[in-house]
């Protein structure tokens, strides 16, 4: 690949056909890096790190739960950022990116919720506790599902894109507000939060698996995002061809 300056490279991603050929080229290596990171992360998480003195082996759940929670948040930020670019700069690929990011983000949110519940059961004895973080994560899932449902119901892509972009931006604005109100709600009823997710300090030996898994998940997110964007571009071309076929 010729040495393009970063702004040129970003610009090159702008128009769809350029994006298709560029993403086609880098997807291979990205998938390899993702696999490498995830496998090494798994190795450290399961085999090469000590159990926590308090939580014992259940601390290994953290190596999946915390990264997926990060990705859930990151996914929504990407969606909101892409939506903003789409609305403000009329960028052709922005809403494709936002629409493609949503299902991946939702999947990570779901993963974070269930692993959180699996982590909570040995700790608190019930599958679900209305802990501030878990509750905010649940509401984040609603934001995702609402966004995906909006795309599914509006037939015409351009109109759906604008509506979804507005929804994503309003959502992003509300995420901190919702989180704060849930934390406040939680402390209102339970003075001391019984459980601090991830513990105050993370021992060095636990940092490596956590970082590796987090990096692996992030690479997975970006790789899948590119694949889904390519599929979305093709989906719109199919729609165009179908419309053209009807006019013939």
């Amino acid at each position, binding site marked *: 690949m010729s040495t393009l300056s970063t702004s040129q490279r970003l610009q090159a991603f702008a128009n769809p056909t350029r994006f298709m050929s560029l993403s086609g080229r880098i997807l291979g290596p990205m998938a390899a890096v993702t696999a490498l990171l995830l496998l090494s992360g798994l190795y450290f998480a399961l085999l090469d790190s000590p159990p926590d003195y308090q939580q014992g082996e259940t601390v290994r759940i953290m190596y999946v739960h915390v990264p997926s929670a990060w990705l859930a948040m990151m996914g929504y930020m990407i969606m909101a950022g892409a939506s903003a670019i789409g609305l403000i700069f009329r960028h052709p690929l922005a809403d494709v990116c936002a629409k493609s990011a949503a299902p991946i983000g939702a999947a990570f949110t779901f993963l974070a919720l269930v692993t959180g*519940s699996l982590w909570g059961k040995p700790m608190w004895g*019930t*599958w*679900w*506790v*209305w802990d501030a973080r878990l*509750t905010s994560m*649940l*509401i984040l899932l*609603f934001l995702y*599902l*609402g966004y995906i*449902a909006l795309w*599914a*119901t509006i*037939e015409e892509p351009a109109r759906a894109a604008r509506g979804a972009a507005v929804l994503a931006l309003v959502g992003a604005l509300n995420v901190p507000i919702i989180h704060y109100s*849930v934390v406040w*709600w*939680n402390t*209102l*009823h*339970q003075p001391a939060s019984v459980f601090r997710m991830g513990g105050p300090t993370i021992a060095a030996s636990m940092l490596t698996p956590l970082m590796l898994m987090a990096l692996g998940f992030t690479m997975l997110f970006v790789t899948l995002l590119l694949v889904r964007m390519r599929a979305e571009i093709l989906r719109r071309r199919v729609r165009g061809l179908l419309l053209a076929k009807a006019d013939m």
Partner: protein
Amino acid sequence: MRRAFSAVLMRDLRLATRAGGGGGMAVFFFLIVVTIVPLGIGPDLNLLAMIAPGMLWVGLLLSALLTLDRLFQADFEDGSMDILMMGDLPLEALVAAKAVGHWLTTGLPLVIAAPLLGLLLNLDESAYPPLMLAMLLGSPALSFLGTIGAALTVGVRRGGLLASLLVMPFYIPVLIFGVGAASAATSAMPSGVYGQSLSLLGAVSLVSLVVGPVAAAVALRANLR
């Protein structure tokens, strides 16, 4: 005649699952209704466990009401209603096909989702089987009675809200017996209550299988003629 009945039913199922079907929306609404309960009442697990059966049933009812108005309105708006009323299929059978379609795409998913949402409300382990059984027994009544509200408000602007108001009173017996059955198994109720409420719930459902289509057919004739 049976072919027409299954044609209408299959078409409704295909439409519901295809473009942003109604079923998914109702479950999503049910999820949100059940989530905001603890946010309103507080995260105290014991309190939640007590009100869980009642809240799950109220959530089920509200979610079923949500998708009622599209039952006939969609066909009325695009002209399909004219054709559906001009076939060999009597109106009562048409309404029954619509109600079964509504139950399969909305009622059943809600009943399947209910136990999962029970987790959020810290529902007692022993309450799951009775809750499921009661909801399976009672949910058809929600669909069949719901057709009455939907038929009465066809062609009415903002008919959905009106449909819910009209039908809510009919849902009260289903609610009472349903919650009775679901909570009888857990809290200290006299032993006979569980069997009693289940059988009453079954009776209400059976009655609604007949009353719903007949009343809705009359309403449709009055409303569309």
